[in-house]
């Protein structure tokens, strides 16, 4: 609340200084912009920036990190009764201090004697510190704003190069924004690697990458968490691969053929109708595909296989019939097929772009030699577009590997090494979601395992993307 008031006050204040600075410099220049180096607005903006920006930054930083600062200061010199507790108990104590200070629900621990005194003392201290940080930061911001205005107002004269200074600020802002993109990558890599290192400390890397048994439930018991085999990710890779292959079997031919038809055969009208419809298919959120897979495709496939099983029962294929009658809704085939549907527009629009960028001269040459259109496509256009289409397929594979919602809702949780599409399998992304959506401590190897899986996923998709983007770039240069 105080933060918002302070920010609003700063905006009003810097607005006022903008007007004041304009007035001052206009008066000094005798009212004519001709005598100034920059337009009057730049003088105003220069002063307003000094008035508002540093102070606003300070207020925001205080709002973001004030709580942590308070926490750290509270822990300096804990009372004797608290100091002898275990770290976990101390954590509970300090959480309760914060809760009491903010009049929130504290934990159910009862404090007696010296502990109660300590709680009261620390609560009072917490309230004091919070007020100190909040009002202190606002006071510091006010000092900063006033001194900024004072110094800036003294500097502006008609010959002051205000525009260049303001553009300096703008350039700084530009660079900060551009660096955000790099910081995101650094953040992703940093957080994944950091947490994964902690995971690989408990579970050796080769056990994770080569182990054939995945059962993180075992790891719930603390004495067992490093036991070999519980975190072997090979079954997850196998499941991911199986579902990805099924998805590509659905998406690659349909997507590629519709791209060929759209770019080589379709007239303007059908292109104008079909393309937006495919874009709708591409825009459908993945959670919708997941719902469709879990409640429509899954039951239909299962009852289909059950009916087939009943028809075959008693015959020479009796064991197959019994198997078909036991398949479940969550088979790899369902998740893979629906994921394939999701990827069709993706493959199609990427391939469409690639095919369209094959130079028309190649087609004209082939047609002039008497080839039919399909021969032109098969013998000239597709070979020319092949690297690009391969790249498109790689990007689709990368999407399929990283896709989460469809598999979370429609694939199972059983980690199995199988190539049978009617079996239940699990994938890397499903396991990340499962490991992180329960209630558990952040430091348990179970939670950290999610980061290990995330790192693997990131590395694989990163390599696929890099290769694909490289190919596309090379290919574009070839015809440009």
């Amino acid at each position, binding site marked *: 609340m105080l933060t918002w008031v302070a920010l609003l006050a700063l905006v009003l204040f810097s607005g006022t200084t903008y007007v004041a600075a304009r007035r001052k410099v206009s008066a000094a220049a005798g009212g004519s912009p001709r005598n100034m180096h920059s337009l009057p607005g730049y003088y105003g903006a220069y002063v307003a920036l000094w008035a508002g920006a540093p102070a606003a930054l300070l207020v925001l930083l205080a709002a973001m990190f004030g709580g942590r600062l308070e926490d750290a200061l509270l822990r300096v010199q804990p009372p004797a009764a608290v100091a002898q507790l275990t770290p976990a108990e101390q954590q509970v104590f300090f959480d309760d201090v914060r809760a009491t200070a903010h009049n929130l629900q504290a934990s159910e621990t009862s404090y007696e004697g010296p502990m109660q005194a300590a709680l009261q003392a620390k609560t009072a201290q917490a309230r004091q510190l919070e007020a100190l940080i909040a009002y202190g930061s606002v006071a510091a911001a006010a000092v900063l704003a006033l001194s900024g205005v004072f110094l800036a107002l003294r500097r502006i004269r008609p010959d002051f190069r205000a525009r260049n200074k303001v553009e300096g600020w703008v350039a700084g802002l530009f660079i900060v*924004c551009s660096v955000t993109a*790099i910081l995101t990558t650094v953040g*992703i890599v940093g957080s994944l690697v950091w947490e994964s290192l902690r995971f690989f400390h408990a579970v050796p890397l080769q056990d994770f990458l080569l182990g054939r048994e995945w059962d993180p439930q075992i790891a719930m018991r603390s004495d067992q968490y490093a036991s070999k085999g519980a975190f072997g990710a090979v079954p997850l890779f196998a499941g991911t691969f199986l579902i990805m292959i099924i998805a590509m079997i659905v998406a690659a031919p349909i997507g590629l053929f519709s791209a060929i038809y759209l770019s080589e*055969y379709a007239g303007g009208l059908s292109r104008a109708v079909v393309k937006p419809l495919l874009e709708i298919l591409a*825009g459908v959120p993945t959670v919708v595909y997941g719902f*469709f897979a879990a409640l429509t495709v899954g039951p239909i496939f299962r009852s289909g296989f059950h009916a087939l099983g009943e028809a075959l029962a008693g015959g020479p294929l009796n064991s197959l019939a019994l198997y078909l009658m036991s398949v479940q809704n969550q088979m790899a085939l369902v998740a893979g097929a629906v994921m394939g549907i999701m990827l069709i527009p993706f493959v*199609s629009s990427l391939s469409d772009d690639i095919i369209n960028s094959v130079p028309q001269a190649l087609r004209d040459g082939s047609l002039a030699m008497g080839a039919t259109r399909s021969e032109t496509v098969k013998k000239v256009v597709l070979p020319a577009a092949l690297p690009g289409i391969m790249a498109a397929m790689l990007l689709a594979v*990368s999407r399929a590997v990283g896709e989460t919602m469809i598999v979370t809702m429609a694939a199972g949780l059983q980690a199995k090494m199988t190539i049978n599409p009617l079996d239940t399998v699990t994938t890397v992304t499903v396991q990340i979601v499962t490991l992180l959506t329960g209630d558990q401590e952040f430091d348990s190897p179970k939670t950290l395992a999610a980061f290990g899986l995330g790192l693997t996923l990131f590395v694989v998709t990163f390599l696929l993307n890099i290769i694909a983007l490289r190919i596309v770039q090379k290919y574009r240069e070839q015809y440009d």
Partner: protein
Amino acid sequence: MTDAALPTAQPSLRQTVEARLKRRHAEELRFRFYGRAAIIVALLFLAVLVGRIVAQGYTTFVDYQLSLPVYVDPARVQVDDLSGANYDLLIADQTLARLGEKDDELGTQSGKLMELISTDLGFQVLEKVKADHSLIGKTITITGPVRADGQLYYKGQMKRTTDESERKLDNQQLAWLDRLKAKGLVKGGFNFGFLTKSDSTEPEQAGVLGAIVGSAMMLLVTASLAIPVGVLAATYLEEFAPKGRWSDLIEVNINNLAAVPSIVYGLLGLAVFINWLGVPRSSPLVGGLVMALMALPTVIIATRSALKAVPPSIREAALGVGASRTQTVFHHVLPLAMPGVMTGAILSLAHALGETAPLLMIGMISFVPGVPQGFTGAATVLPVQVFIWENASERAFEERTAAAILVLLTFMIIMNMAAILLRRRFERRW
């Protein structure tokens, strides 16, 4: 020999060519058919997907409301212990009497009737009596939904023909439902509750308002971060940055970020925003931050291509009359690129609206009754609401899941339409 061979060779070449031509044309037709079939199959998938969800979800928008006069019995409701009274039982007993039935000693009959009446009615009586103590001893009329299983019966999704042991309501309960309807106590109508209520454990009381507000708040955070930062970053890279190794690196980096799986952004949000910076879990703030990072590459790429489309003559003209480079960009180039920028921004926001996976990582999956309290309070968003309801075991949540999807798709279509209109209205070819 040669004379004899020539005449036979001529027609045979012609014949082979014609035969081959026939084959080639058949091949052509077949190829064309494959292409057409692929498109038809793709569109068929779309039709089945949308049709199936509409078929599953439209029944949610019909709702059966029960209007009952309730005598607030002073013998059962004490002024000094208003919350202690069992209002559900009070309503059930009186309804039972209205139906001409008697409760047995164990209360099985009233218990069975309570399975038909939503707890919402009991809460309404409590609220009314709390607000006005003088209502005790009087008769008040309250209106509230029939319980979810009863709704299913009215909508024909639970059939009398099903064996009694396989449905949740027995024959007597179905007969009561029929009689309540015949007496005019139950009326069907448009389900406004679905759009004005928030999540609830009772299907008939669950709505999407909380999720819609949560989504809107999250998108507000996303838009106010991703659009300015993305536009400025793209402007810098396109208009100012010296072309070289660094800008190449940033370009490759941005293209890669656009293809990173969304769940990885969720892991980033969990590790950095929640555990390191201490942003509250499952809040619209943390969701918006993660979505902003996800949307950033898309916004940057869209802005760069919009800036590329502005012809250099505009820049040269501005520089020629003495504008600085910053002035050129802010006064001329960016305004001309704005339609393209906004189109890209809206599309990336629409994508963020439908994204689910990263939000599961940052705790948005929790049950949140009511509308979110501020940007740091707990919230849920539409796609996550879909996921939560899909996991709910009760049959009545199935239609609500489909209906929530319809609401989500409606918002996405509106956003996409806005982007298309913007493009059509302001697009300029140079």
